[in-house]
């Protein structure tokens, strides 16, 4: 049997399942948030294949957790918290940290990659990127998680620090970015 036709059968089997609602909800969230989780895992220093695998794993864990009947107040915050912990675990097994920045700088500066931007915009983007890169690891994490829409207590829970510490990390990050410090 070809993989195509078997895949068709598989998909049909799954979708006919009576308990499809939970699956559909998690699948919907997967489609909406997987790229954000993937990027967050890249920002932690994972290589792209590990980041993608990790992102997928997080949504499967969400499904398994919900299936057990556990209540999750804010699934998006939960996903990022689990992604953070899972990402750090994967990173600790990597022999080196993923090149989050090196290639990115080249891409930002490349006129071929982003021809619609003028020189000034490219320079601004590069400068801002370098400023973000200059933030401490905790400042970066707080900033990235805040950009994903997490509130202070949710970031605090993900990073294992207090909400007031999150506020302080964010304040310092914003102050440095405002001054354009590299």
């Amino acid at each position, binding site marked *: 049997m070809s993989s195509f036709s078997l895949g068709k059968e598989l998909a049909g089997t*799954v979708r006919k399942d009576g308990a499809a609602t939970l699956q559909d909800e998690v699948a*919907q969230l997967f489609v909406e948030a997987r790229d954000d989780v993937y990027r967050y895992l890249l920002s932690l220093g994972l290589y792209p294949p590990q980041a993608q695998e990790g992102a997928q794993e997080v949504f499967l864990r969400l499904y398994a957790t919900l299936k057990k009947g556990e209540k999750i107040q804010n699934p998006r915050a939960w996903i990022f918290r689990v992604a953070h912990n899972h990402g750090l675990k994967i990173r600790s097994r990597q022999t080196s940290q993923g090149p989050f920045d090196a290639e990115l700088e080249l891409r930002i500066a490349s006129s071929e990659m982003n021809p619609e931007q003028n020189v000034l915009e490219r320079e601004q983007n590069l400068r801002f990127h370098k400023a973000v890169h200059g933030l401490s690891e905790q400042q970066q994490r707080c900033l990235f998680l805040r950009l994903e829409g997490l509130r*202070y207590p949710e970031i605090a829970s993900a990073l294992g620090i207090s909400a007031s510490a999150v506020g*302080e990390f964010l*304040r310092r990050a914003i*102050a440095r970015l405002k001054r354009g410090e590299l």
Partner: protein
Amino acid sequence: MKTLTRHPEDHELLLYADGELPVRAAGRVRSHLEACWNCRSGLEELETTIGDCVRYRKDVLQPFLPSPPAPWMDIYQGFQRIDAATEPGIFTRLSKFLAPVKAHRWATAAVALLAFTALLYRFLETPDVQAAELLQKAVAAAGSRPDKPRRIEIRTSQHRLTRIAGVRSAAASSAADVDALNSLQALFVAAKYDWDDPLSARSYQAWRNQLADKRDEVTQEPGAYRVRTTTGSSELVAASLTLRTPDLTPVQERFEFRDREWVEIAEIADVSVAPNADGSGVAGSASPRKFETNAAPPASVPSMSAPAMPAPASIGDELHVFASLHQIGADLGDPIEVTRTGGTVVVGGVGLDPHLRQEINDALGNDPHVTVRFSDSSPPVARPDRSVAPETAVNPDLRQLQARMADQVGGRVRFDELAAQVLDLSDNMMARAYALRRLAEHFPPESESGLSPADLDQLQRIRQEHAAVLRQRAADIDRLLRPMLVSVTGTPAKPSAISQTNAEDLFQSARQVEKLLAMMFGTVPGEAWDDRLPARLLSGITDLRARSEAFDRPTVSPDRRDR
């Protein structure tokens, strides 16, 4: 409310901007900001930096970080694995079976377990349905069908055209159509996508194969596969192709270009149309073929031959659409347009939540009289912010009035809570008022002769449900505010003597109350403020309650349906 006697620290401003300050502290900072240009300017700088961060995420991180190296997994297969792993029945049964231990039974069990494991492994390790493989099969399937031109409808944000696919050129019926087709052709040529035959697996495959980077997603929908490809290396940044399941015939396509232009193409059912002598197609007004989800076409019938077109959509069909939307709660303020045009009821919307889209598709997708069409070309319309904006300077007289009312209800905190509660009720009420007005616009009394008795009953039921909620919300607002307003104005409003009203009058009355509430609680600048505001609000609420009670009340005969 007390104001800060000192300037807020940077961290307080950030907490304030992020909504992380407790209500009282936020109120103090807000009051300080109203008075202090320095701090307001500081807050603006802070917001600018936050805006820079958001742009950085959108313009740098999203486009420039490396794309996932492989297609995303079919998450449903992962669910299946989890379900299988957590299924208790098999192991329970197995342990029962193995309970009376005997050698020969152990051996049998081991063989059975081995066979089961092998089967499970084969089942789980099956490769995902890949876009490339699916396209290859679709191309092969197309090659086995008679090669005849097909008529397609092309929709963009500004145009709706038809043409013949599979020919070198396409004539149009007007100069405007020619221009539109030419500009579309230019878009497709720039994206290296075959314009001559855009609705084909071969063209999609050719475009996809030449992309330097790409990401695919294959999903199964009822009766169809959908391949979606996104890329950063083409003017065409995303395309999706829907293939009918039985024979992999392309039936729909959507293209999203870098400049945010979008194009949708669908096959049209019209067997009578043939290309002109020069091989060109003509623009016309034929309707797009409804996507057939379950019907497998006979092998001998060419792909352009379609089942007989359904009868044009009637006002009853339009009502069924409203009833379906009502059933899933999609008639309460979501930007969904319903229009009956060209013999079909078109349900469309821009920037809708994907989950809601899916619900609407599920509810209406199989109705042959309905075309569901959504677009992402604009961001969703933001709901007005009901919180008091720090930049909004509150009129001193209004502030004084609010202070008096706050005293009446037990303090500023209670007043703020009351304001939030009432504004929520008002939102809820207005959703119903809009829904009623929309029903009245689509189904005016003169159109009701086209509805069957069952449809009329259905229409009446929807109206009554909206009216009942509106009535309840108006009563809730009245109950919460009347004591406070009476104590401030000193005179209760006279009851309104309204025995009959229609949807438009009811809407206007609700709208008036909504506006006055917004002014009263300072969510809009109070230019129109005057000291009669509490009395006007009280009178408005009284009028609204009377109208909501009178709405849809039968007065002449049971058959008469009031708007």
